[in-house]
């Protein structure tokens, strides 16, 4: 119980001290994860909708694959991205290893299947509901995609939040491809891992509490937007 009390005290001190190093870490965490989620959403939303609406050979297999990839282990993604970006790897010339960009790439790979798979489900449900209506208006699957994505936007926010949760919580991938370099690639989760390895358990847990608070804030903001949108719809 001592640990828990010390952790809450550490979290409180971290917040009130407004430590510049800490806010640099928080800012980088948000920048990396939000960028990754944005990119994953831009690809994943249309991709998921397309898989939902178009009939093509291997569609069933693709759906299974997308669903399965939601469970990609971050450490494996990190390792694969590392091997590609290493100087000894095929993309080594880009000189991206141990940079925030490398971390974003790894997180896009982690988040994309989540956004795409959940979008697929949402759009498929909407399509079965509105199919006749849309077809009678002369809208084929291709033209229905933007309409359905717009119609499902309130639900799709949850898909994107699930993706953000995945990105902001993982440590395995960003640790490997980012290297946890101070002032360059150090984010909240890698800092927590580092402080744990130093035996500074209360500080590590305090940082964890802070990360949880941030996640809460972002989800609350999303919920606010969703309620606003729903009110406007009604």
């Amino acid at each position, binding site marked *: 119980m001592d640990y828990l009390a010390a952790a809450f005290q550490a979290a409180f001190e971290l917040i009130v001290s407004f430590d510049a190093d800490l806010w640099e870490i928080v800012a980088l965490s948000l920048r990396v994860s939000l960028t990754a989620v944005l990119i994953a959403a831009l690809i994943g939303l249309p991709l998921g909708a397309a898989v939902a609406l178009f009939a093509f050979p291997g569609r069933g297999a693709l759906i299974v694959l997308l669903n399965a990839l939601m469970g990609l282990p971050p450490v494996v993604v990190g390792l694969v991205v590392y091997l590609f970006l290493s100087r000894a790897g095929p993309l080594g010339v880009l000189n991206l290893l141990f940079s925030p960009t490398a971390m974003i790439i790894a997180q896009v790979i982690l988040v994309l299947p989540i956004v795409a798979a959940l979008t697929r489900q949402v759009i498929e449900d909407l399509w079965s509901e509105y199919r006749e209506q849309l077809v009678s208006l002369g809208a084929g699957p291709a033209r229905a995609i933007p309409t359905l994505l717009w119609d499902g936007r309130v639900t799709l926010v949850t898909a994107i939040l699930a993706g953000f949760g995945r990105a902001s919580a993982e440590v395995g991938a960003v640790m490997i491809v980012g290297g946890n370099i101070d002032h360059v690639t150090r984010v909240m989760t890698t800092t927590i891992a580092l402080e744990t*390895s130093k035996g500074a358990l209360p500080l590590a847990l305090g940082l964890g509490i802070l990360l949880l608070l941030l996640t809460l804030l972002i989800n609350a903001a999303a919920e606010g937007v969703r309620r606003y949108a729903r009110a406007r719809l009604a």
Partner: protein
Amino acid sequence: MKTLLAFVAAAMLVATGVQADDKFITVASTTSTKNSGLLDFLLPTFQEETGIEVRVVAVGTGKALQQARDGDADVLLVHAKAREEKFVEEGFGVERFDVMYNDFVVVGPAGDPAGVAGKRDAAAALTMIAETESVFASRGDDSGTHTKERNLWAAAGVDVEAASGTWYRETGSGMGATLNTGIGMGAYVLTDRATWISFENKADHEVLVEGDPELFNQYGVILVNPEKHPHVKADMGQSFVDWLTGDAGQGLIADYELNDQQLFFPNAKKGES
């Protein structure tokens, strides 16, 4: 859609913005130099004097060597002399220089079930741990400390592979994580002294075995060979090597203290290697 694409492009630019500044080198080093706070103490001065930023990736010696082999680091600062010399022999490094040393210690629970407290002979102490089958937590991660530990077991004539999973437990993780695990299990652990002094979760564990010359822990620095990897920042890397083995770096290493204890002892031999 166009505005969205522009936004993504802008976001990517922001994301990659940090890399525009090229005046930095990447140093692959071990967790002990990083977790003990030594590098955080040294590097600001180096950056002030030379304008070169040093980005440290702290991993086990095995991974650090591999990273340098792949060309993903400019300078290597590790502690496994035989493997460092092999690295240079194979042409991956330019030359190896001694930098500093500290020592390894065996820490264990205050209860000391194997009765090794006060022993100087490390191999004999390990033999006693093996004979009483007292729990021992090993790094098991191919690091410099792990290499040293395996050599000590070999000297003690104990086959730890056979005991793995029983009283001999390999955590497969870094020094700090292994200490956390070992302390949780009431196990003996071989650790470098710097990490131990700076470690904050000691619980009832204390240093039980120390002072054996076999526990000597030498650190070396190597510039990755630009002939193998042309993109290596040889000039800036060399200035770091020179600085670390020169008066300024050596003086600062000697100055670094934690809890009133000196953690590393500089021993670079200038003009020779």
